[in-house]
């Protein structure tokens, strides 16, 4: 792999020599194998990211990423800004295709299907995954139409089906009681937290196999954040959730597994409790304790 030149920004006060060695190696463009805990390996993976590389034009942002995502669990991706966690998330449902200059190698498998395989139907693929974005993005339509959007584009017209899905999804997103009396009002009139939960409801209304969340709480106030976090905990078990977050506390609160990424590579990946209390690597500890990042 020809690693292009990177802007390296090794923190000056990087602590242990071992830690800085590994990070420095990553920074210098070497591919350093990730430390993946045995517990992760033991799980049944729904998504397998295998030797995945991604470049925006000449700039490579993901290097040989290997990441099994366990079925029915919440997996968090953490790491400093620009480490490629959002890119990785968007690679899973090929949202990066919307950017013209993207090129990939390696693979991502959803169950047995190759996401980047030839002749794969991207539309069908995306219908198997729900996505929640950093900025809440309700459509300029009524709350009801927002929730049932995925069914609508699939051609569903039966009013009863739509209503029941709408209610279930809104209940699932803990929003039903707040909006049940104004389902036909514009979604744009809701508060920021409500809008984000509406987006989650919209994502789960399509019964996806995976829920991809890209920093879902970064634009929310603490109360709304709490509600969304409770929601994620509530969804655990039914859904496989892959969440990107900047907020380490959030990762520790909501996730079962956490992967720490740095400059396009996974550094350590293990059960959240282990990673936050007793990580294998010094680098992980440094990052989690806030010594760099």
């Amino acid at each position, binding site marked *: 792999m020809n690693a292009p030149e990177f802007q390296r920004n090794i923190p000056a006060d990087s602590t242990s020599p071992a830690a800085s060695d590994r990070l420095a190696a990553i920074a210098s463009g070497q591919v350093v194998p990730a430390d993946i805990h045995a517990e992760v390996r033991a799980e049944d993976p729904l998504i397998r990211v295998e030797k995945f590389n991604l470049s925006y034009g000449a700039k490579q942002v993901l290097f040989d990423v290997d990441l099994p995502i366990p079925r029915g669990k919440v997996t968090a991706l953490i790491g400093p800004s620009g480490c490629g966690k959002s890119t990785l998330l968007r690679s899973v*449902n090929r*949202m990066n295709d*919307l950017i*013209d200059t993207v090129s990939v190698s390696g693979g991502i498998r959803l169950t047995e299907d190759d996401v980047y395989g*030839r*002749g*794969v*139907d991207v*539309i*069908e*693929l*995306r*219908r*198997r*995954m*729900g*996505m929640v*974005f950093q*900025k809440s*993005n*309700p*459509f*300029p*339509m009524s709350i009801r139409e927002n929730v049932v*959007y*995925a069914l*609508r*584009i*699939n*051609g569903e017209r039966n009013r009863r089906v739509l209503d029941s899905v709408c209610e279930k999804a809104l209940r699932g997103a803990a929003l039903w009681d707040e909006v049940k009396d104004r389902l036909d009002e*514009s979604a*744009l*009139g809701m508060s920021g937290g409500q809008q984000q939960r509406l*987006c989650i409801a*919209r*994502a789960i209304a*399509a019964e996806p196999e995976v829920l*991809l969340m890209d920093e879902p709480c970064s634009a929310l106030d603490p109360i709304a954040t709490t509600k969304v976090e409770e929601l994620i905990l509530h969804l655990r078990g039914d859904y496989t959730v892959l969440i990107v977050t900047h907020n380490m506390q959030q990762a520790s609160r909501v996730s079962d597994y956490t992967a720490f990424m740095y400059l396009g590579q996974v550094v350590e990946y293990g059960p959240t409790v282990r990673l936050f209390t007793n990580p294998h690597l010094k680098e992980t500890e440094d990052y989690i304790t806030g010594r760099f990042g």
Partner: protein
Amino acid sequence: MSDQQTDESRQSYTGMKFSRKPAMRVLLADRWAGRIITASGIGGILAVSLVGLFLLWVALPLLLPTHVERQAVLPAPSAGTSEAHVLAQALDGYGSMAWSLMSDGRVVVQEMAAGRILEEVSVVGQAPLTSNSSAGNKGVALGFADGTVVLADFAFKLEFLTEADVPDEIKALAPGQSRPWRQGVIARTPEGQLRRQRFALEAQEPVAISDTAVVKVDVTSTGSGYVLAAVDASGTFLYRKLKVRTNMLTGQKHLSSKGSSAQLGEFGLKDPGALAGLKLNDTGREIVLVSRSGRAILLVEYDGEMLLQGTSSLLEGEAVGEARVTAVGYLAGNVSLAVGDSKGRIAIWFPVAGTDGKPSRLVRAHVLEPGPAAVTALAGSGRSRMLAAGFADGTVKVYNVTAERVLGVTDSGGGSVADLAVAPREDRILVGGETAVALLALEAPYGEVSLHTLLGKVWYEGYAGPTYVWQSSSASDSFEPKMSLVPLISGTLKATFYSLLFGLPLAILAALYTSEFLPREQRGRIKPVIEIMASLPSVVLGFLAALVIAPLVEQVAVQVIAVLVLTPACVLLSAHLWQLLPRETAARLEQWRPVAVLLSMALGCAVSWQLGPIFERTLFGGDLKSWLDGQIGSGTPGWVVLLLPLAGMAVGWLNLVYGDGLIRGVGSAWTHRSVALLDLGRFLVSALATVALALFVGWLLDSVGWDPRGSVLGTYVQRNALVVGIAMGFAIIPLIYSISEDALVSVPDHLRAASMGAGATPWQTAVRVVIPPAMSGLFSAAMIGIGRAVGETMIVLMAAGNTPIMDLNIFNGFRTLSANLAVELPEAVKDSTHYRVLFLAALTLFAMTFVLNTAAEGVRLHFRSKTKRL
């Protein structure tokens, strides 16, 4: 910081010190910038409103009230001498003198300042005067008791005198002043010249046409002499053509006459005394006889014989038997007949050519507002459709006939009106009353224009019925101007409609394609190219349309229509065939898809080209133009062509409701290929159903007797709405494209991401998520396109044929408001009615674009408020 208060003690990090107070320079610049911006803003608004105000300023006099008022009451020419009354009168061009033909055979010339009699000339021959024609520009015919007729020219002669010719009291005249002098009136013109005007009577030798008294007579001059129509006391109708021969030696003129006679009894009239009027038209070949009981007899001369064209009853309804025709007069041009009755009602009649070989008949085209007493005199103006009517109680009413408008009413103060004369400049009216002569001042320069004539149906002279017509000028002076703005407005709307029909879908779909389906970098290349199209001067587009597109489309009209129908069908077909490709192959060939679309479009054009002649043979009887003329074939094929898009939409909708469910129903059970085959089959069935539906509805409409020819389709003209639609479409596409593309691109990407993330296709994303918030922008784009199309001049001027015809026919030309301005404004006489009506047309255009833009802004804001929180 605690040490902020003291500047000295404060630390400066940069080593610079800045004043906390803004510098004077900044304040001044700020203030001046504010003022300049305010002033230029107000200036901009002012400039726009000034344009509107200027147009209004020029057009407004058209709608200002008109009036007639009595300027002077002068002693009657007969005062004190006899009971003679006025038979005919005329006023000179300056309103300074007038002649009156009296019933005792005198012609009395009066000056108009005090009514002094300047001159008296007698025209009495061997016998008393018994009849006369009205004073017009063709001379006056005088009929006498001995059966002779004298043709006389009553005129005012002008001469300019030198100072040496006149006495001192005349020399003292200031410019503008005038005074009677030696049987005439002398005036000093504003240029200082001395202008003398006097009456001149030039009579021909008497022509004997009968043995008994001539009771009615009328004359007209033709190229070779005069034509005379008369009725004598014995009830004989006399028609004579007079030739003038001038003796080369003596200079004497000699009249030779020949002609025919007929008994009034042949036309159902017995008593010559019951005749109210006899009128001869300008050609000298049509005569109208009007009886007091309201019967009108239309005679036409053919090969020296008088043929009865028809009779009409001029007094209709309840008045027959009670009312009597009391006055008959011609309007300018001597075609329209004004008929006044004893109840004060006035109607305008003129002959309308019969259709299918039927003789022409008189129709009552206008009914004017009645007066208070019996109509006693009617006089048309020599230069417009103005009619002055005098009533038995001395009232004078002035009308404009075209506009059916009363220009003014006044009491002449001279008792029952015997005769009227409108001055040549239409600024005065001379009223010969029983007891006095009144001079009325008339102020109605734009009498022929009213809201009704501008926007309503008007029955113009010679037309079969009321219509909207724009015909502002003609070769003859006595022509009736037809100034309906409706054909121009409809032409403007027609141009706009057809160019939008062509340009709007293309432009908006193109914008949708580049913004939603093309990679960003390609979009960046395409947009400027399309925008360059906007800089193509419209005159270039215009001559391309007129000299290249129009002749080409004329040759291959069927092919062009076929292209419009078959190309989309071909693209759809190839899309369905594309689905048949295995998934992997399709994914691999994805980047070639636009090429495939282009190829299928080219294929559609080629197929249309090949099939065009076959269509022409099978559908349009081998010749589209004859078919359009309605000469051959039935209306069904036309309906099919018109209904195909509608039928396509209907079938497409049915497909959406039922067909999609079918495809989804088989869903996962079938292989990709069989689903694609099923879809292809569905498409083919839908296409057949579309044609069948169009055919069936077309046949149904045709069998009901409704033929599209004559409304949306019709006679083919080379410069037509289709050509303009194509050319102007090209002009508005870049405009609409550019604005709609901006609107679509400005929809935030996170909405697209959300939709794509939910598994929507790019098309679903575009339709459901991108278009609704961009609607305000798309709407603005369409409105700006409409604004451009409404105001566009050069393209329509060159390619629309400029025929102010009002119809929907896509194959016919039209004239728009803007093209009309470009064509006619350079020729319009400044401050004439025509000139001002053109300004009114400009104002209408201004108002149309203003209303369109305002409505567009309103709708845009409405859409905007729905999505502004995005």
